[in-house]
């Protein structure tokens, strides 16, 4: 059943492939310095699916940028398989929230992009790209341009492109946020299927409780600003999972518990946003 653990860096086993250690991120704003992420520590085991969930403004995306190496100024340490990293690392493949396919490349050329960077021969990289296109269920669309595809299909192209680089860790920042609920659930199934097939270590940043419970082994619940680890919840649901699990009683209990944790934080965020809007009537909330 529910087995929340203490929000410390000691809560995972020592064979962690990804270690996020005491990360603190501060931003300077016109209203003064803001601590976006405050002393966050995580450990992710090989093959594990870990989600980080929190309300808007809890520093989730900042944490995504820190782990992905896109943010330079922070205190703390990120290491992959024991090696401390500073900056983007080939072991970490990122899938972004915004639509990020290259509109000037066909689906095959998009997916083959990371292989092209390695200098792989054209015939070989097309073959590899087709394998990953099939994996995300886009066979038949190899020669289409992203402009001809739906939002969900484009996100699958982005996922296939990242998987083609064969990262040790798949890092995703709300990849389905712009999609409707049904598509999101079905794509969740696809991600789960791929993750289980490839035994892919995955770190998902999300604000969607259903998505997090549907896919994760553990869920890290973050507090509203400054973003801290509030609780880590182990999701003890059977695998392999599909979206059908959302109707189960156990699923509902996990959702309820995480919402109970999140509700207080989301309310705090909403109040803060209202206060900010009142004090900056023209600019609105940031």
């Amino acid at each position, binding site marked *: 059943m529910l087995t929340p653990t203490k929000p410390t860096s000691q809560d995972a086993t020592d064979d962690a492939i990804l270690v996020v250690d005491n990360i603190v991120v501060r931003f300077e704003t016109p209203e003064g310095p803001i601590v976006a992420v405050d002393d966050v520590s995580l450990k992710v085991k090989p093959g594990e699916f870990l989600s980080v969930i929190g309300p808007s403004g809890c520093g989730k995306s900042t944490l995504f940028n820190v782990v992905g190496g896109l943010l330079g100024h922070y205190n703390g340490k990120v290491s992959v398989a024991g090696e401390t990293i500073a900056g983007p690392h080939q072991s970490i493949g*990122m899938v*972004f929230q915004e639509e990020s396919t290259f509109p000037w490349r066909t689906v095959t050329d998009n997916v083959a992009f990371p292989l092209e960077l390695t200098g792989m021969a054209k015939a070989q990289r097309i073959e590899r790209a087709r394998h990953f296109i099939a994996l995300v269920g886009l066979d038949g669309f190899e020669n289409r341009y992203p402009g001809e595809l739906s939002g969900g299909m484009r996100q699958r192209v982005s996922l296939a492109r990242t998987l083609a680089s064969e990262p040790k860790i798949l890092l995703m920042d709300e990849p389905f946020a712009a999609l409707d609920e049904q598509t999101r659930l079905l794509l969740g199934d696809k991600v789960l299927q791929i993750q289980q097939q490839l035994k892919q270590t995955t770190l998902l940043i999300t604000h969607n409780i259903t998505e997090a419970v549907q896919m994760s082994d553990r869920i890290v619940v973050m507090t509203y600003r400054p973003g801290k680890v509030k609780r880590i919840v182990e999701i003890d649901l059977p695998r392999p999972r599909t979206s059908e699990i959302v109707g189960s009683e156990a699923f509902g209990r996990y959702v309820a518990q995480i919402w109970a944790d999140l509700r207080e934080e989301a309310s705090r965020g909403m109040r803060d946003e209202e206060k900010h809007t009142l004090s900056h009537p023209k600019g609105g909330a940031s």
Partner: protein
Amino acid sequence: MTDAAAPRPAMRRTIPPQVVGLSSLVAFFLSMELLIQTGVINRFIVPPPSDIIGSFGRVIVEENVFGRFLLTLSECLIAGVLLTVVGVGGGVLMHRFKLLQQACETWVAAMASAPIVLMYPLFLVIFGRSMWTMIMMGFVAALPPVILKTLEGLSSTRKVLVNVGRSFNLTPSQQFWKILFPAALPTIFVGIRLGLIFALINIVGVEFLINFGGLGQLINELAERYDLPGTYAAICFVILVSILFFMTLEKIERWLRPFD
């Protein structure tokens, strides 16, 4: 009340827009013809459209229009090559070096709206009465839109695409050639298309002013002979060439960008 509030059925489009456009043009020429033939407009200032159409064959055969067209076109193409190399290169440099952008962007933008054609005496002194005066005038006058559009295209590349490049650990050169440049290409094309049209206008203008070269010189010669139908026929020919030029550029652009 209910009937009035109910949505109206969509009207069926029966007349194609091209037909409407062409009909307006024909209506304009017919009314001009009527106004000139009835003496409302002086025929020694504006010749009737029927005279202009009648002189088309004469202008084409006697005045070597195709030879002049090829000359103007070659001047435009040389200016176009210079524009693409220097204009796109300038935009890339301004994007790469922020100081250069901050220092130059305003005056490049100001240059875009300046009547550069008035500098033709200076160019005449530097390059002499040769085709290079026209080429360089066309090139200089058309440079600002190419630089500015290149800069705009590179600067407006979506941040997430740059971040994708960063996540794959691209070198600065790979980041430019594999992400920034292809992402900016549609906007750069717009700049080149605008630049080539500016170049054509200025080249024909300077040919007219210095009475040398292709189609612009033809208009000048016919006007000096007071051959008004011939002059207007030559002007129509230049307009026709401009339209064809514009349409060809659009076609090339579409062919080069199949993903749009």
